[in-house]
């Protein structure tokens, strides 16, 4: 088999996958724009003219951003710890991905047992007299962000870890041996080199959080409906696929508005780091 043919055969599965994905995307957007064969923005007009939908979109993006921030704050030190761990690193990795073995519904319900009005924390607070009545620890923004962070944290850790594992330990040691304090070494060596992983993690977590359905459904309150939940309702209850497609397109465009600059930054950074490495 010639080399070009071999390459073509190897690329064929991914080409088919991409083709199917793009076809689906085009169909999705098309079904929201074509009404009785004519180009029509009626669904978009209807969505963007409703104050509750606009608020829902804002809430979705805000919640996704806050979830991403929480995952980053928790994920970066965890990834650093695992990367520098001298013992059985595979065991730590197993612990990180362990939650994936449990259904997302069960994981979310786990928080009900801990944070609910009759849950562990509220029972302790009321029993000890620290609170007169149960605190509202869930069915609000806090509950949704906590639940999403629990579900998505492994993605952030693994994205950062995959890059950190490539950073030679002796770079940090060299920095410190030249007089750099730990904070300085972190800021000038570790952080810049791990940024591609951080940006990948941010992209992954942000995108998954914007489309979340189950966690906001189970842990959100009255005012915590997210766009993913609304899309689910349009598909599963009203069978209004064009409207669901329009909502999904709005979500896609707004998510891309955040993710594309991140991707550009990541590429620029990768090029810069690679140039620096060559120099």
């Amino acid at each position, binding site marked *: 088999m010639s080399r070009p043919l071999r390459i073509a055969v190897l690329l064929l599965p991914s080409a088919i996958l991409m083709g199917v994905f793009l076809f689906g995307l085009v169909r999705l957007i098309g079904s929201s724009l074509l009404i009785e064969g004519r180009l029509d923005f009626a669904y978009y007009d209807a969505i963007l003219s409703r104050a*509750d939908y606009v608020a829902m979109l804002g809430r979705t993006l805000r919640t996704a951003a806050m979830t991403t921030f929480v995952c980053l704050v928790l994920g970066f030190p965890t990834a650093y710890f695992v990367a520098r761990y001298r013992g059985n690193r595979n065991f730590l990795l197993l612990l990180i991905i362990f939650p994936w073995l449990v259904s997302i519904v069960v994981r979310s319900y786990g928080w009900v047992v801990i944070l609910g009005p009759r849950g562990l924390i509220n029972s302790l607070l009321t029993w000890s007299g620290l609170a007169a009545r149960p605190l509202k620890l869930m069915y609000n923004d806090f509950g949704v962000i906590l639940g999403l962070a629990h579900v998505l944290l492994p993605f952030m850790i693994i994205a950062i870890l995959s890059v950190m594992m490539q950073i030679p330990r002796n770079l940090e040691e060299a920095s410190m041996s030249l007089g750099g304090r730990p904070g300085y070494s972190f800021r000038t060596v570790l952080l810049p080199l791990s940024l591609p992983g951080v940006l990948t993690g941010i992209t992954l977590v942000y995108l998954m959080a914007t489309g979340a359905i189950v966690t906001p459904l189970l842990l*959100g309150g009255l005012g915590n409906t997210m766009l993913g939940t609304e899309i689910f309702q349009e598909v599963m209850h009203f069978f209004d696929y064009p409207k669901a497609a329009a909502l999904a397109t709005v979500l896609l465009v707004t998510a891309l508005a955040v993710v594309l600059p991140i991707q550009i930054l990541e590429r620029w950074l990768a090029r810069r780091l690679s140039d620096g490495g060559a120099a």
Partner: protein
Amino acid sequence: MTLTRRQTLASALGATAALSMPARLFAQSGPILHASWGGGVGDTWTVAFAGPYTADTGTAVRIVELPNPEAQFRAHAGDPQYHTGIGTFVQGVNMMRDDMLETFSLDEIPNMRNIDEKYWLKTEDGRIAGVTPYFAYYGIAVNTNEASVEDFQSWKSVADPKWKGRLGMTRPIYLSTYDLTILAKAAGDDEYDTAGGMELLKGMARNVLNVSNSLAQQNTMLERGEVAAMPFYSVRVWSLNEAGVDYVKILIPEEGALLLPYVIFAPKGVKDRGMVADWLNHIASAAPQERGAALSGYIPANRDAVATSEIKAKLGGEYDDLRARLYQPDWGYIAENQKDIVAAIDQMLATL
């Protein structure tokens, strides 16, 4: 024995094909496939309806549990994979309007004569598009460890600010059909004029701890006392009571409770039409409905069904006494306007 790679691949493909085929094959010949919700509903249908039918006629009925039978019917429109399925009355009306249901004459389902015509799912020309085997009702479930049944003698109580953070509530999709309808009735209006009901609903929404998304979640919240009360289904409380959770009670407030008819329908173009009509006729008869009542607390639609003394004790009277306290709205009107009502509720909730 050593399997070659080709043999292994062939076996795997064969197994995959075999696993993917049965529903389609069965739908074309063999037993009746009935799409049901899961949990207690599926069990009720297996024990009260399907098992005895098979024993009487020799025709096997397989109850297939699905999260949403309507979604399956719509997904396979034109190429039905199930002979019959269950839905809410609103779902039935919506599918009938979308011309997705097989219709039958009264002669094909003669037992329908024993079911009050106001519960029929029928087309404009009088053909039967679905059989209503039973009802539940939508009242107020109270955890008596957290509140007294006297606290909820009226639907208006749910809007009382003293219950702030102590009530449960379902999603707008069901608020639109159930809660708003009965709250409108409580406010002195009806499903055609829901302004007063919307005010009560707003008051209730201000009091809720959360919006629950599944019956299991609602059950748990009531059972654990996370909420003191919530509008809920009589049959779910029945199940809780049967499981020993006797401190959760279902109330019919003074304005009445909402009557919730369920409907069994067949997809348009269903195979084995005669067999399906016979199965629907069995569903419309009194005996399986009585068994359903004994198992799960469903109220039979067939007027010949008799309540045992045990059921009377649990329901608090004869079926007719109970029916008299239930409000049967114009489900057709509600189904037709559901999307607009959900939008109105969504927008109302967004202002809280």
